[in-house]
């Protein structure tokens, strides 16, 4: 089996301690939580950090808390916990849809939401989920905390707005009435990365879509927020024609590359098909949903 290059290792006991080490060591230091993105890359020697800061002991970052206007999820919450959460299944079912098709059940025992978002792999499902739900993330650094939305969180392939000495500590999912959400994914085989994936969220009031989130996975260098499609949906009553139009925009506005998973035209086709399916299911869920 392939093995990583040597590195130094420290177990963080506090968030502040982890951040301080990041600041001290600099770009050669990486945080490691579940490690199921980072360690495989290190074994293949595609990533060779000299210093790993193990944050798995930071239990204070593992939670799914329901507040009045939002759900707060700690960065260290594992995929398996997100999958099993009845709270999320009720209020943001797009999470369970996505978790059922993220990696495999064993990997899900270790991978975390913080790690997934910060990995910034365009094919990573939770990025699309959080973008569609219009989540904000909390970043903590030596100077303190700041929050940022998903728009602009992804700067480029495998690159986020998280600073070199910052840690993503929390994801906040806004709660509004009339919500419905869903995730659709096509893959070559269970557990594979997406050929294409779409997360959709709608908020419906008085029979009209008041807000919409549509995020595309594996269809560009980063997760793509289909802003033009979102704008189209707002203020209109949901319908198959509307979904089809939104799908058409998603098809135009994504920028897939050809690879072993598929050529460009097929991926664009999936952008449209999966947008329609995700919007359809999100709408059905929103319409069943009672105002809380």
């Amino acid at each position, binding site marked *: *089996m*392939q*093995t*990583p*290059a*040597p*590195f*130094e*290792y420290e*177990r963080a006991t506090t968030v502040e301690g982890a951040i301080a080490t990041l600041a001290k060591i600099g770009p050669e230091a990486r945080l*490691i939580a579940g*490690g*199921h993105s980072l*360690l*495989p890359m*290190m*074994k*293949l020697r595609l990533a060779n950090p000299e210093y*790993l800061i*193990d944050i*798995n*002991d930071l239990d204070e970052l593992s939670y799914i808390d329901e507040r009045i206007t939002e759900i707060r999820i700690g960065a260290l919450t594992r995929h*398996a916990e997100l999958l099993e959460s009845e709270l999320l299944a009720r209020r943001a079912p797009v999470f369970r849809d996505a978790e059922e098709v993220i*990696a*495999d*059940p*064993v*990997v899900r*025992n*270790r991978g975390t939401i913080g790690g997934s978002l910060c990995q910034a792999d365009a094919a990573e499902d939770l990025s699309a989920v959080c973008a569609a739900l219009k989540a904000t993330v909390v970043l903590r650094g030596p100077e303190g905390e700041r929050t940022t939305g998903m728009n602009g969180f992804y700067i480029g392939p495998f690159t986020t707005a998280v600073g070199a000495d910052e840690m993503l500590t929390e994801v906040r999912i806004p709660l509004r009435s009339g919500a419905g959400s869903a995730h659709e994914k096509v893959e070559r085989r*269970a*557990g594979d990365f997406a050929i294409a994936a779409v997360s959709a969220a709608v908020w419906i009031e008085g029979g009209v879509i008041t807000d919409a989130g549509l995020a595309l996975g594996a269809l560009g260098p980063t997760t793509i927020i289909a802003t033009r499609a979102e704008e189209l949906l707002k203020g209109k009553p949901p319908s198959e024609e509307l979904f089809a139009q939104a799908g058409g925009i998603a098809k135009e506005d994504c920028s897939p590359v050809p690879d072993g998973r598929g050529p460009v035209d097929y991926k664009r086709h999936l952008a449209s098909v999966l947008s329609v399916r995700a919007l359809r299911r999100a709408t059905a869920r929103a319409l069943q949903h009672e105002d809380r």
Partner: protein
Amino acid sequence: MEVKITINGQEVSRDVEPRTLLVHFIRDTPGLTGTHWGCDTSNCGACVVLMDGKPVKSCTTLAAMCVGHEIRTVESLERNGQLDPVQLGFHEKHGLHCGFCTPGMLMTTRALLDHNPNPTEQEIRTAISGAICRCTGYKNIVSAVRWAAEHEAATKQEA
């Protein structure tokens, strides 16, 4: 660095590099070569062990990360000469051929039954979808787990 991990209820302590993977730490411990490896990319599941009761891929875990946690390997399933129901089930239902994926499958399905004592066929297939078997085609593995579930339920009833 000194790494001390509880494996199958015993403390195992060794001086290893931070980069030492859990699977190698386990396999370098006398008598514990039952945990295998079969790939480089965390796909095959031959290396699955239980960490605090949950299946994890030991090839994608640093030994250092397991300090303070309980690791259980396939060697822990047999207790006092009694085989675990999952082991019996795999034997009854011909759930193994070459035996290479078997320890990972046994640990995964042991954890499944601990969590869900009466899984459906689909739940079993999902639970083992992180492990590859090249030999069996999975059908008899599913039967083996169903046998184990029924056997455990029957044994509990008698108790």
